[in-house]
């Protein structure tokens, strides 16, 4: 089993997912109670207009034909037109995507920066107080309603302490950096705009901490388990017997090996963060895809909701594919990952 084989098999699965998700979203958008043409035209539109909309949207055609057109449009990158904004859904999503990715990456970095050391300590001092503390943090993380944590964080750091802003992506008084990548931090750096960079960074901290907190425990737990495996290996004992310090063996030998199997979990975490961002963005008025989709849901804007579902599902599968390939590249002993 080689790299190419894995790619081929995974691409086959990606194709299945494309078909599956498109079928699901197609089915869901046909489950909506009421007449979508009437919904788009509005309450007071004449029957003639409604009939015209029905015709342009091909709602009068048989279902299979509608699905065929739907898939053809999808393949052309056409996700339909948002009822709420009146713009193409693909354009809307492209505009909101960078904000979400910026948040997710920041949250993931936070989860790794805190989770990896916690996991290592937990494994090294197994069954000691620090281990119990880390496991408690892990369970608390996955049990915390992220939207509620966001509210508490706003109350504390914005409402009481006035340390950080409580919402938005950049200060209203600060001009956003010129659009290059869509990531404010990157764009501000490229433009050499220190004020915008500082403001964007300050706005990013609270939402990223909130979103990342849930995954600190996930990362810590994974690292702990992988580290325990490594610490039981012969090479660790040999290295210790050969006179290397414990610190050196743990950080220099065991940790790099423990990180390899953890890559998969980090990939999954990235996917989870991507849709976990929906709630965090809502709470922090973060202008990303999550806020967009929640506003769309509230105004029954189905093309937008379905477009979002498709894009996020593909991103999810794609990230997992990339992570598996990285995994394969990191560990030459692994030849099959199913």
């Amino acid at each position: 089993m080689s790299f190419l084989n894995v790619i081929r098999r995974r691409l086959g699965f990606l194709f299945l997912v494309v078909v599956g998700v498109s079928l699901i979203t197609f089915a869901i958008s046909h489950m909506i109670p009421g007449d979508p043409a009437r919904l788009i035209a509005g309450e007071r539109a004449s029957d003639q207009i409604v009939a015209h909309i029905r015709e342009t949207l091909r709602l009068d055609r048989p279902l299979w034909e509608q699905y065929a057109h739907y898939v053809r449009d999808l393949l052309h990158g056409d996700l339909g037109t948002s009822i709420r904004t009146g713009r193409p859904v693909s354009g809307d999503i492209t505009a909101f995507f960078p904000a979400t990715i910026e948040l997710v990456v920041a949250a993931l970095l936070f989860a790794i920066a805190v989770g990896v050391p916690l996991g290592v300590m937990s494994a090294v001092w197994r069954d000691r107080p620090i281990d119990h503390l880390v496991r408690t943090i892990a369970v608390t993380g996955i049990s915390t309603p992220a939207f509620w944590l966001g509210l508490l964080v706003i109350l504390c750091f914005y409402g009481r302490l006035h340390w950080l802003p409580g919402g938005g992506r950049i200060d209203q008084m600060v001009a956003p950096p010129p659009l290059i990548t869509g990531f404010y931090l990157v764009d501000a750096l490229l433009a050499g705009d220190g004020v915008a960079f500082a403001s964007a960074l300050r706005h990013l901290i609270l939402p990223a901490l909130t979103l990342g907190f849930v995954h600190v425990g996930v990362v810590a737990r994974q690292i702990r388990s992988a580290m325990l495996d490594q610490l039981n290996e012969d090479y660790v004992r040999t290295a210790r017997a050969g006179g290397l310090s414990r610190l050196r063996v743990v950080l220099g030998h065991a940790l790099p090996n423990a990180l390899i199997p953890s890559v998969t979990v980090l990939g999954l975490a990235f996917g989870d963060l991507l849709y976990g961002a929906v709630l965090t963005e809502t709470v922090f008025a973060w202008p990303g895809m999550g806020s967009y989709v929640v506003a769309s849901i509230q105004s029954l804007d189905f093309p937008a909701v379905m477009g979002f579902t498709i894009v996020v599902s593909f991103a999810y599968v794609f990230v997992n594919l990339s992570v598996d390939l990285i995994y394969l590249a990191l560990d030459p002993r692994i030849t099959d990952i199913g």
Partner: protein
Amino acid sequence: MASPTSAPAAAVPRAWIDWGYLAYRLRRSPLAVVGLVMILLVFLAITLGPQFLPFEPNMVNLRARLAPPSAVHWFGTDEVGRDIFARVLYGGRISVSIGFFVVFLAGTIGTVIGGLSGVVGGRIDTIVMRLMDVLLSVPSLVLTMALAAALGPSLWNAMLAIALVRIPAYVRLSRGQTLTIREAAYVKAARTFGASPWQILRWHVAANALPPIIVQATLDLGATILMAAALSFIGLGAQPPAAEWGAMISVARNYILDQWWYSAFPGSAILFTAIGFNLLGDGLRDLTDPKQKVR
């Protein structure tokens, strides 16, 4: 495996779960016991609690609007003077019922589909499992949101949406279990002695497939309660006047800076309940999975 004694007990009908052994193991897993105690506390509070309260969850008292926690109103009051403690207790009834209903629905349907798929095998099995792989590869919150939005915002629809999305996990689990158990030596032995497929299903498959499914269900209870609250928070589940935890927080959000107690208590209730189920689920997993004992 429920216990090490389950394997040799070939054709003798026995209890599905060895309670005595479970109690013995539980004593060695303090976190699971903590989880169990937390869950029992939640159950006590939401079943008996409201009996002792002088307030109804929807009793409006405009003279006591947004009052901070006090001896009378333990958790304070909301924007129309309703007692938040009473609403949190009643909300717990809703949230915990949602959890059990959803997990029961998804667990039953998923287990049956998975078991059948594993027994039937062949092309049907392949198709079912590919379908489940596709469903599992779609982020669950996104799919749940899309479904709940399409069905229309109501608590009932949110529950259906959560249940639908949770089914594939059980299908996979129960299929895997069925395949393993079907090939086990004691099942073959029972078949040699003339046990019918139904008897094998009841005595062996059910007994041995159930523990991991119960573990999954316990962990799912916490996740489901969180998911239901999240849906209500973004307006897809229970609608605001209802005393549901997520719906309460979605209103409380408007008062976050000045009336901290309004969102703090319903949220703590979600956190407490979810931690309870997760600790219990983790503990049960350690008990039922012999491989994890070392950890």
